[in-house]
């Protein structure tokens, strides 16, 4: 059987004696009914949201695989807790801060969110499906922070930070763009799926945390960098594959509509560009680590996939495949060089979230004008800087506040013994690990 649609349809139709009706279709006008458009849009949000939700598992596995086993259970607690807290905070505060903002405004409404489907056809999708989709994005930003500050941060201060990040910090900056606020109205800033709004935001918060928190004990002692190898690279790889999968929903769903032929084409193009950027990130990191270190470094290759994905996230629609490949490849270059660089600066980023999410997020945002004429370099720069300054400064202040009040750093003994045994009183792998 030819694996092309038309014959298949005919065959299929014929098999059910529907050939007539199938032919009859030609008559119908090429627009879907409003009801269908509504359902398509809602379905896009729900299915995309599901795979983005699953990214929480991806981040968890990536982190759990890249930390030492004595801290693996704590990573699990942090990741399932942060996703849960994000959901609650976006409900209580976040959503209305993002979308309650006035045109060109800087600060949205304060208030609990509730679904309003009164003007169904007006909005064109179920309110809850949109909320769900936005919520999982917020959770993503929190996951990014978790990886960077792993293996030395205390559980509860971290969770408090997550609550503020997901309930206030992320929503405020997101409102400037996705809420139609200042950056959107004044600078026609463009960030399709969130290279800056989601990934850099997570990255800036992570960077602030890494600085306030300091490096893991022994990481930079004796003026040299002591690697602390991840305890399960297979789980880290699984996590990366899950993230890759989720990214189709992350970028594809950000088209926000699926009900028309043009929207369907856009979503499809986004899928392809998203995939190709990741492929390029992987291959680039693979070749570069071989050339630079004489050996392929799996962990950097995994970061390369994420770097490519983050880079394409600001504009996955307008690039040609070739351009997407290039944008992703640069992402691979960035992670390969930025990871050792951070170590030189004694910034201890356990999973490489800062290079992959922050640096590649900036790169992806700044390159948008190359393929999308609606965006301009100045506007992009303003957006990157304004959001960066806001998120970094507020996060830094918050981390510092937590540090001086309750303390954010686990004691040296706790760090030696591992957070699992000391904070949770259990072991992630009681029968195996050293």
């Amino acid at each position: 059987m030819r694996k092309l649609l038309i014959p298949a349809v005919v065959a299929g139709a014929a098999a059910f004696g529907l050939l007539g009706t199938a032919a009859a279709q030609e008559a119908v006008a090429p627009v879907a009914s409003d009801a269908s458009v509504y359902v398509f849009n809602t379905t896009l949000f729900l299915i995309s949201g599901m795979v983005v939700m699953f990214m929480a598992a991806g981040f968890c596995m990536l982190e759990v695989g890249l930390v030492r086993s004595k801290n693996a259970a704590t990573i699990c607690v942090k990741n399932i807790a942060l996703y849960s807290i994000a959901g609650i905070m976006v409900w209580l505060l976040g959503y209305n801060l993002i979308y309650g903002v006035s045109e060109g405004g800087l600060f949205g409404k304060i208030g609990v969110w509730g679904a309003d489907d009164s003007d169904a056809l007006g909005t064109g999708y179920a309110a809850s499906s949109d909320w769900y989709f936005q919520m999982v994005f917020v959770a993503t930003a929190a996951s990014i922070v978790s990886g960077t500050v792993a293996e030395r941060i205390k559980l509860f201060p971290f969770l408090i930070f997550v609550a503020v990040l997901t309930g206030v910090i992320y929503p405020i900056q997101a409102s400037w763009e996705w809420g139609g606020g200042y950056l959107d109205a004044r600078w026609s800033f463009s960030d399709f799926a969130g290279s800056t709004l989601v990934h850099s935001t997570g990255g800036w918060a992570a960077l602030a945390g890494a600085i306030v928190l300091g490096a893991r004990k022994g990481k930079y002692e004796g003026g040299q960098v002591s690697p602390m190898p991840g305890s399960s690279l297979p789980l880290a790889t699984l996590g990366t594959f899950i993230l890759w999968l989720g990214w189709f929903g992350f970028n594809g769903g950000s088209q926000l509509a699926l009900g028309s032929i043009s929207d369907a084409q856009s979503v499809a193009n986004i899928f392809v560009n998203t995939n190709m950027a990741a492929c390029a990130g992987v291959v680039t990191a693979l070749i570069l680590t071989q050339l630079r270190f004489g050996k392929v470094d799996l962990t950097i290759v995994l970061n390369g996939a994420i770097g490519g994905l983050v880079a394409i996230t600001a504009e996955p629609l307008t690039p040609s495949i070739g351009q997407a490949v290039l944008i992703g490849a640069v992402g691979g270059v960035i992670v390969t060089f930025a990871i050792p660089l951070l170590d030189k600066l004694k910034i201890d980023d356990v999973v490489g979230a800062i290079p992959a999410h922050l640096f590649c997020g900036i790169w992806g945002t700044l390159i948008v004008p190359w393929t999308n004429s609606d965006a301009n370099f100045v506007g992009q720069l303003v957006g990157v800087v304004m959001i960066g300054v806001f998120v970094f400064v507020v996060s830094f202040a918050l981390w510092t506040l937590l540090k001086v009040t309750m303390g954010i750093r686990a004691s040296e003994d706790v760090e030696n013994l591992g957070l699992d045994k000391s904070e949770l009183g259990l072991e992630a792998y009681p029968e195996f690990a050293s």
Partner: protein
Amino acid sequence: MKFIIAVIKPQKLDEVRQALTGLGVEGMTVTEVKGFGRQKGHTEVYRGAEYKVDFMPKVKLEVAANDDQVTAIVDAIRNAAQTGRIGDGKVFVLGLEDIVRVRTGETGAAAI
């Protein structure tokens, strides 16, 4: 009686075991260990950072034996474990004052 402790390269374990069985040795105890020695570990790169691997994976073998068997056993281990390359390991011979077989309570040579 003697208590022989041998530290060898992991991939040599099977050959050594067979060599000893060949001598009629009926039991031994094996432990996975890490060895530090002349065979200096190599430097590795992980996420762009260089580091030295000091400890090499080794296998430790413990065999209790009668005095008359010791030389044969030590030689057998040597021949089977030898690759001629640095890191082949060592054999240590300690004095052994007594043995008891838990199952039967036999002691001394009978318990070996």
